[in-house]
């Protein structure tokens, strides 16, 4: 195996070579090798959509789909928040109660102190950040397992919330801007504008990426793939916006053949663009910044990251800070949808958030998973509850099915890990 000057340099690919066909073949090869990502969850979601559409005529209606989105939003935010700590192989059991405590802080400040709602909002976020810093300090600096620290907070904060709200108390959300998140919709035109901006941004970043790769002198994937992706985004987005532009309250009832007068409900729910922007921003940070790369590295092999000069403790702390801050958003979403904040707001949801992340394909061992996985996982869990509810099945069935789906998802993950560990490169 001696090298002489006459031997041509070996060619090392990057997976970007070849036409559309080669790319598709490549993709399926990586899937077979166990890099399934969100594929099982997307498949599951589609199956559930089709299934419930057949089983209930009320399922695939604009009204119910809009409901489904608002039902999902809180869980989705919490699951996305948890991804940051789960990527490190850590857990934040207190994310749910953090969302409850911060929502309580907000509502109490607005009600009892008559504070300006924006100021109250900022204080709620500051409290969330402080909680994350607290957890991060004990996990990353003191060295207590995150399970223990956050379990302690989970218990303690339920008490704190009880003290803030008062036993049996409940505060109505009377800030119209907060209520609007879940209960109001974008004007139809704004829905289309949002879609157009989203497509333009996606296209712009893709083109910028290609130009940058070209400048560096490396191969780009066929541009057709990019157009296919943008096309799918545009068509899917347009279908969605069109569906949400229908008056969802129409046809709900007639009196002597005449439709009952009703308030028009149309447009994309306001929570959708908020959640999408946060999803996009978080994904951008995780995929395209050094910080994101280091987060994955610490989650994959902390010792390797340390030797590479990454400040592992700082990364760990930051993940908890991001998680708790995003949990504040989840708390506000929940308060907006329910309309009240009680002493038990947020205390039940955290494990569903973890379940959503795992169902979506985020590995609890750390290092593997993306925000979109958590979002899809949350959709799967929410669609189960929504569909079974429409079928009139008791809530017990919902829990059983959700639990079953979680174990199924974990099994798929375990088998794919075994496969990817077992097969060497072909």
């Amino acid at each position, binding site marked *: 195996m001696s090298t002489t000057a006459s*031997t041509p340099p070996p060619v090392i690919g990057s997976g970007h070579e070849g036409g559309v066909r080669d790319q598709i073949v490549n993709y399926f090869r990586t899937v077979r090798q166990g890099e399934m990502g969100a594929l099982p969850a997307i498949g599951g979601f589609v199956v559930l959509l089709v299934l419930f559409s057949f089983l209930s005529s009320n399922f695939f209606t604009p009204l119910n789909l809009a409901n489904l989105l608002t039902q999902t939003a809180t869980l989705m935010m919490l699951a996305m928040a948890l991804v940051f700590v789960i990527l490190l192989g850590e857990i934040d059991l207190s994310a749910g109660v953090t969302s409850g405590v911060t929502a309580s802080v907000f509502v109490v400040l607005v009600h009892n102190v008559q504070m300006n709602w924006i100021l109250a909002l900022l204080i709620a976020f500051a409290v969330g950040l402080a909680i994350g810093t607290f957890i991060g300090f004990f996990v990353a600096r003191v060295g207590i397992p995150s399970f223990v620290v956050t379990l302690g907070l989970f218990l303690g904060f339920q008490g704190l919330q009880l003290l803030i709200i008062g036993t049996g108390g409940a505060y109505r959300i009377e800030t119209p801007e907060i209520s609007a998140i879940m209960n109001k919709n974008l004007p139809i035109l704004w829905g289309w504008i949002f879609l157009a901006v989203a497509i333009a941004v996606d296209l712009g970043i893709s083109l910028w990426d290609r130009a*940058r790769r070209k400048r560096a002198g*490396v191969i780009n994937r066929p541009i057709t793939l990019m157009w296919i992706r943008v096309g799918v985004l545009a068509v899917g987005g347009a279908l969605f916006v069109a569906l949400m532009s229908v008056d969802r309250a129409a046809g709900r009832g007639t009196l002597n053949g005449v439709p009952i007068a009703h308030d028009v409900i149309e447009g994309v729910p306001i929570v959708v663009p908020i959640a999408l922007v946060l999803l996009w921003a978080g994904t951008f940070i995780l995929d395209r910044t*050094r910080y994101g790369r280091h987060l994955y590295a610490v989650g*994959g092999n902390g*010792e390797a*990251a340390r030797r*590479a000069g990454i400040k592992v403790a700082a990364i760990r702390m930051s993940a908890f800070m991001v998680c708790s801050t995003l949990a504040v958003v989840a708390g506000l979403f929940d308060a907006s949808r329910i309309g009240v904040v009680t002493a038990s707001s947020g205390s039940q949801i955290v494990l569903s958030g973890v379940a959503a992340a795992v169902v979506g394909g985020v590995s609890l061992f750390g290092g593997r998973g993306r925000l979109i996985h958590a979002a899809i996982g949350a959709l799967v869990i929410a669609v189960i509850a929504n569909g079974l509810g429409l079928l009139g099945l008791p809530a017990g069935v919902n829990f059983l099915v959700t639990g079953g789906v979680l174990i199924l998802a974990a099994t798929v993950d375990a088998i794919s890990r075994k496969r990817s560990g077992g097969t*060497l490169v072909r």
Partner: protein
Amino acid sequence: MDVPVIELSGVEKRFGPVEVLKGVNLRAYPGKVTALVGDNGAGKSTLVKGLAGVQPYDAGEVRFAGEIVHLHTPREASALGIEVVYQDLALCENLDIVQNMFLGREETSGGTLDEGVMERQASETLQSLSVRTVKSVRQKVSSLSGGQRQTVAIARSVLKKAKVVILDEPTAALGVAQTEQVLNLVRRLADSGVAVIIISHNLVDVFAVADYISVLYLGQMVAELATKDTNNDDVVGYITGSKTYEGSVA
């Protein structure tokens, strides 16, 4: 004789009452492979950790290209061009080859990761080492064999024009063919002008690849030999302490 790029003299290190290094001298030359051998507990790892800046020496002198330097942190060592490839490789299995090679020193432009530049530099580095076993630089490390991982770890160390590369037991966990590949890689690395220090228990590998052999025995450098002037039995003798040697490399 070349000028050593790195020269240790009288290096000492103790952990509490245990004196691990008792005045060790070591030299490594550009373009040459220096093997560091010795039995378990001889102080090889401690010596290397000092060079890496992970565990600074208590006393002694480190000269880099003739200048006295102080190695207190991995960053200082890295800034001089001293890179260590540890036995456990320290790669992130969830990241691909490019991401691992650039870990902690990613190229960015406009505040975001410049994947194109990193990809090109990674391929160029692998190609300069005549690596043939890797198909794509975007493969996840989890999908690589032991020899391929060793290759990635070595390529990572030379990515930023390292002057000294220290390899800790690079062939310990490899099969025959992969050992051969890695030793070839080590040779090419040295031929490119890098001073390579290789720690190994396997004297067959050492004789196959090293230009000089330095033997540590209980915290002391008992022999510094040119490979061509010595033989297996002598080196085993120095390692086990049954043979003593006075003098130094010619």
